[in-house]
């Protein structure tokens, strides 16, 4: 089987603004999936609500477009039920770290074989540009006329502090690097976070492609993503330079390997056999609580 980007072509008209960084990400997704030789019917893209979450409609692919901020939770349900499929989440940083922050936190703990791609455009774009969890402190918004008072979330440090087994960073301004990063993340067996610095020309005139080109740099060959202390230092130093590539890698047992009883078959094929209850009942009847 040989999959091409054309297999992922969709006829749904795209509702993003011209010049949006999401286009580069969309192309990288097509490229990575086809280069991994994954056919659209073996992949599920799971999203919530926002601009980034519209992405799977612009592909031909199994799509679960659920609720704002709940994409990771739904993806866990999908993956547990269908462990033969490749499950990828695309979320805005508002959904993944704001509304859905709790799911993100606990998904890291599980280390299921999921890839979570966060399109970080530093704002709630679809609802008209309000501050998001990563908006730099001091940014003036209508709801924060004297500037955002909260410090931005540091999702990379958060992930590494919780031993997230794959942490990568890309930017829509460096499309050349994106597909490779996505491929590595999807290939990685375990929970992968791909944080993408995404440009949003409609609401953010500072973080332009040019800006990211200037402020980002590729991690060199000498960088060891398995050195946790170094990775933490890297992502916790002030943010005027952003490293691109695989920031952190850790070998951890996969969720279902470590303790879930082996789910050998995807659940969709399971017959209903009411008699199973008989067996359970027998065991139950034998025991006094």
């Amino acid at each position: 089987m040989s999959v091409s980007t054309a297999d992922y072509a969709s006829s749904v008209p795209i509702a993003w603004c011209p010049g949006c960084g999401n286009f580069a990400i969309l192309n990288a997704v097509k490229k990575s999936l086809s280069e991994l030789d994954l056919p659209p019917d073996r992949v599920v893209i799971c999203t919530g609500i926002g601009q980034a979450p519209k992405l799977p409609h612009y592909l031909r692919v199994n799509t679960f477009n659920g609720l704002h901020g709940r994409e990771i939770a739904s993806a866990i349900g999908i993956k547990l039920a269908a462990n033969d499929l490749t499950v990828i989440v695309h979320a805005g940083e508002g959904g993944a770290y704001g509304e859905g922050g709790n799911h993100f936190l606990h998904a890291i703990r599980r280390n299921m074989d999921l890839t979570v791609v966060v399109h970080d455009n530093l704002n709630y774009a679809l609802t008209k540009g309000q501050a998001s969890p990563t908006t730099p402190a001091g940014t003036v918004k209508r709801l924060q006329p004297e500037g955002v008072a909260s410090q931005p979330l540091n999702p990379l440090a958060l992930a590494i502090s919780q031993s997230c087994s794959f942490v990568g960073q890309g930017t829509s301004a460096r499309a050349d690097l994106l597909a490779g990063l996505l491929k590595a993340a999807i290939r990685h067996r375990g929970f992968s976070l791909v944080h993408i610095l995404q440009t949003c020309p409609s609401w953010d005139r500072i973080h332009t492609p040019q800006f990211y080109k200037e402020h980002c740099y590729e991690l060199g060959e000498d960088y060891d993503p398995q050195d946790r202390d170094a990775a933490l230092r890297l992502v916790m130093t002030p943010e005027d330079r952003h490293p691109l590539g695989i920031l952190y890698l850790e070998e951890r047992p996969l969720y279902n390997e470590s303790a879930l009883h082996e789910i050998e078959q995807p659940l969709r094929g399971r017959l209903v056999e009411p008699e199973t209850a008989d067996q359970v009942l027998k065991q139950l009847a034998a025991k006094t609580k």
Partner: protein
Amino acid sequence: MEINIRIAGAAGQGMQTAADLLGKGVTRSGWHVIAYSDAESRIRGGLNFNHLRVSDQPCAGVTNRVDILVALTREAVEQLAPTLTEGGVILCSEEREHPRRAPLNLAQLAEQAGSKRVESTVAVALVAGLIGLDSSVLEPLIHERFGGDAAKLEPNLKAMTSGYAAAQAWSNREMFVLPPGDGQTERLWLAGHEALALGAVAGGVTFFAGYPMSPATAIFSNLGDWQKQAGIVIEQSEDEIAAINMVAGAAYAGARAMTATSGGGFALMVEGLSLLGMIEAPAVIVLGQRPGPATGLPTRTAQGDLNFARFAGHGSFPRILLAPSSVPDCINVTAYAFDLAERFQVPVIVLTDQLQIDTTVSMAAPSFAEMPRERYLLTPEALRKLPVYRRYEQAESGLSPMAAPGDSHHTVVVDSDEHDEEGHMTESGEVAERMVRKRLRKAASVEQAAWAPDVTGEVEGRPLVITWGSCRESVAEALAQINANGAGVAHMNLRWLWPLPAEPISAIVNAASSITVVENSPEGGLVSVLREVTLRKVDHEIRSVTGRPFAVEYLIEQLTQEVMA
């Protein structure tokens, strides 16, 4: 004849274990028994009790009569002695003086057996001895329970022997001796939470996600015990929102998916419920009610969330509300809930409550052979033959073809936005209208499948008492007693609560001379439903506001007052 036993003490003193041993023992002796508990929201201390109602006749209602009070603390004596029936006795240790105390000293017998910790086993043995449970039934129980731990087995066996002997030796014992039962010693001893979990297994559950919350936790603890055997993926989620969204994801992927929670957790699932409605994903949600608002009384019972469940979620979408009428019925209702959910691609909410969940009964073994076993997903073979697959294809019934991703070369697209037939988001008013109408047609299909209510007695021109859920059993028993004098009061119980077809229900309620709704909640939930659906006023309402179940005695008094007046 029946004997009511109340085992009371502080949380952690083993009342639950004692009740379980006794319940199982009387079940194996061919008697009938129902047991329920009254517990505080704490792990040790306070005043809890387990109540067993044992009879040579079938019995399923709740009563407040107490013939034998086992009081493990002074507080238990003081608080509960007033509940004793005439001739009732207290079993307690010597230092707890009380005029009703039987001369059977728990503490002393326990000490003789070598450990203060076996007091509850002594209590079991004393009660067994009093009611005439055969010691050949008792002994295996002690082995089953403590056999795994030699250090425990020894003193418990001793406690059993000496307790049993002491009771048998007591001269005033006769009034507690139960006549033999019907000889059926093969009945099950099953709790509501076990019945609900069993029903889920019978219904083919393959995925469960949930977050602990009383009284629903016990349901998924059972599923936890059985996960390997029954092949269920169980996920303890970080919160209830995660649980319902996991359920939605798993259902999309073709699992028979379920969650269980109580009011507060259900409140957090409401957005997800609306998601299930929009993407038309099947799911079963067990809502174990307890008194609200908010945290309320976490370990008590109520039936206060019917209308909340009926309207929970923004926008309109079909859903089904079911309510088991008894502990055994929990099995059926839950099993059928899975069938209905998948058949109609809707969320099904099973309304139960703390009383039903935490009640244990002796019951005939259920048969699963006749239960539905159909799956409604397109098979991989059927799918492969389709030139195109569209998840929300229009259909007269409103039921579009459902497929799981990965089952064929087709992709499956679902969207929480309003969408077109392929599942892609839309801005079009026309497409939206088509989809809304499709879901309305589906709602009509669901309504046609509604189960008829259970009606007992002649309704025409007679008073009609209406119930749903856990209070059905006590009301049925109260009415049986009232009707024994020829009163002729009819009873209607609803196991299918929503959607409620207007015509058949209206026909029944309009035939009655008066209607009375019994519901354990401060405001009438079913009262609202009936008024809306039938446009008939409810003449009498019997409600409870204390978080405690209705007792048969109380119902007889109230029903006689209200309905017979």
